[in-house]
C-alpha cells in the first residue's frame, strides 16, 4: 500500500533516523494500521495529521515499541528495532515520548520526574542529573517549580515538565502524541512555543497533532493518515494548502469549516 508519492523537496534528503516500513497493527482482530511507511530524517520535524482513530497515536506507540507490532519493520538509525532479539528496553531509552495526558509520576517532584531516567537508566550521578534538570527546567521556564509536585502545576506547565523529562535523556527521536489535546485553549500556546523552539534547536521530531496551523509552521513534512494508511504526504505548504487526494481535501475543508486552520 504505497501512499501517493509526490516529488519531494530537498529537505527529505537527510540521513534517516526513524524509518517505519509497512507497519501493520491489529488490536485483536481489529486492523488499525495497514502497512504504513513513514521516515523521519535527522533534524527533521514530521507531523502526522488525520482524524481521530486514523492510527496516528498507534503509529507513534508502535514506533517506540510501546505496542507490539503485527507486521512490518521499524528501523532506528538503520537498526531493525522490530527484531524480537533486540532488547526493547535499550531501544526505548533512545526515544523520548510525550503523551497527551502528560503521564508525569504524581508521587515525584518535577525534578525527580526529570532526573529519574538519566539516573536509573543512563547511570548519571545525582549531581549530573540535577544539573541537567536545572538546565532543562530553565529552558522550559519551570525552574521555580522544580520541587513542586505535578498536581500543583497547570496543564501547560505539566506538559512542559513532561517534555523536559522526555528530552532529558537526549533521545534520537522525540515522539509527541497530541501534546496539546488535553490542554485549555489558552495553555496550548506555551507548549507549542516550546516545541517550536526544540524544532529550531534541531531535535528530530515525529508528532501527531490536531493543530494544523502549528503543523504548517513547524513541520518539514506532513503525513495525512486515513483509516490506517498514509493517504497523502509532502511538504506542509503542499499537503495543507493544495492537497491532491480527495480525502485530504475533504478533511481539510472540514477543519477550515470548523475554524481551526
Amino acid at each position, binding site marked *: 500500500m504505497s501512499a501517493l508519492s509526490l516529488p519531494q523537496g530537498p529537505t527529505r534528503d537527510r540521513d534517516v533516523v526513524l524509518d517505519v516500513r509497512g507497519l*501493520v497493527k491489529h488490536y485483536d482482530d481489529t*486492523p488499525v494500521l495497514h502497512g504504513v511507511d513513514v521516515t523521519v530524517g535527522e533534524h527533521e520535524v514530521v507531523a502526522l495529521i488525520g482524524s481521530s482513530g486514523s492510527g496516528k497515536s498507534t503509529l507513534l*506507540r508502535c514506533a517506540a515499541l510501546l*505496542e507490539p507490532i503485527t*507486521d512490518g519493520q521499524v528501523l532506528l538509525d538503520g537498526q531493525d528495532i522490530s527484531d524480537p532479539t533486540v532488547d526493547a528496553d535499550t531501544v526505548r531509552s533512545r526515544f523520548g515520548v510525550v503523551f497527551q495526558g502528560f503521564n508525569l509520576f504524581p508521587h515525584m517532584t518535577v525534578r525527580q520526574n526529570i532526573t529519574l531516567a538519566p539516573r536509573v537508566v543512563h547511570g548519571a550521578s545525582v549531581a549530573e542529573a540535577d544539573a541537567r534538570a536545572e538546565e532543562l527546567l530553565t529552558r522550559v521556564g519551570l525552574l521555580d517549580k522544580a520541587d513542586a509536585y505535578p498536581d500543583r502545576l497547570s496543564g501547560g506547565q505539566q506538559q512542559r515538565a513532561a517534555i523536559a523529562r522526555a528530552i532529558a535523556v537526549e533521545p534520537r527521536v522525540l515522539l509527541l502524541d497530541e501534546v496539546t489535546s488535553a490542554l485549555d485553549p489558552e495553555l496550548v500556546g506555551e507548549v507549542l512555543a516550546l516545541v517550536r523552539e526544540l524544532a529550531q534547536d534541531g531535535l528530530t521530531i515525529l508528532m501527531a497533532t490536531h493543530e494544523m496551523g502549528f503543523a504548517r509552521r513547524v513541520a518539514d513534512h506532513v503525513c495525512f493518515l486515513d483509516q490506517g494508511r498514509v493517504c497523502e504526504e509532502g511538504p506542509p505548504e503542499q499537503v495543507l494548502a493544495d492537497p491532491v487526494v480527495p480525502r485530504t481535501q475533504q478533511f481539510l475543508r472540514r477543519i477550515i469549516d470548523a475554524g481551526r486552520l
Partner: protein
Amino acid sequence: MSTAVTGSAGTYRPTPLELERRGVRARRSRRSTLTALGSTLAFAVLLYVSVTNAPGWPRVQESFFDPDVAWEYLPDILRGLWLNLRVLAVAAVLTVVVALLLAVVRTLRGPVWLPLRLVATVYVDFFRGVPLIVLLYLVGFGVPALRFTDGRISSVVLGTAAIVLTYSAYVSEVFRAGIDTVHPSQRLGARSLGLSYAQSMRLVVLPQAVRRVTPPLLNDFVAMQKDVGLISLLGAVDAVRAAQIGALESFNFTPYVVAALLFVALSVPTARLADWVTARAARREQAGGVL
C-alpha cells in the same frame, strides 16, 4: 494465532519477515518454558530428597502420613467439611449484606446521619480489633449465658455469628475503599440527571465500586474459608473437630493432614477465580498497556 484477518481493508497475510519473527518468538517461549519446567523439577526433587533423608523422616511419615488412618477418618472429616461449607455459604452472604450496609452508612454525609455513622464506626473499630478467637469465646459462651431462650443455642449458629461480626467489619472497609475510588464526577453525573443520593449510590456508584473491589473481596473469601474451621473451638463437629477426634482416637496426626489438604482443595478454585477476575479487571482498565 490467526493468520488472516478480515477487516474493512480485506485480508491481511503476514509477510515472510513477520513469520520468521513469530518463529523466533515461539522458539524463545519454548526455551523459557523448558527452563521453567526444568528448574521447577529440580527444586521438587531437591525438596523431596532432603525431606525424605531427614533423620526424623520415618517417624514423621508414620505419624503424619499413614494412609490407613487417612482412609479411616476421611468420611468423618468430609462430613465435618460439609458443615464448614454450609457455614461458609451462610456467613459469606450475611457478611456481604452487613458489610455493604456498614460501608454505605459510613459514607453518608450530613449531621442527621451522625448517630448512625458513629454506630457503624464503633462497630467496625471494635470488631476489627478483637481477635476472632476471643470473639468466638465471647459470643459462644457469653450469649447463651444471657438466657434469651430456654433451649440451647447451637454452637454452629453462635460460631457463624462471630465470624460474620468480624468479617463484616473487615469487608465493609474494602467496600468503603471501593466507594471512595469511584470518581466524584460519577456522582455529579448521576445527580445532574435528577437521581436521589440513594439512587445514585445504588445504581451508579455501588456497581462500579463492587466491580473494582472484587479481587480483594475474593481474597477475604479465601481467608474466611479457612476461618470457618475455628467454629470447632465452640464444639461444633466440623472438619477440624473431626480431625481432632480422629487424631485423639488413633494417636496419629494424619487426620490433621487430611483436613489440611481438604481445606487447600477448597481454596484453590477460589484463588484461581480471584486471579482470573483480577486479570480481567486489569485488561479492562489498562487497554493498550502491555508493558
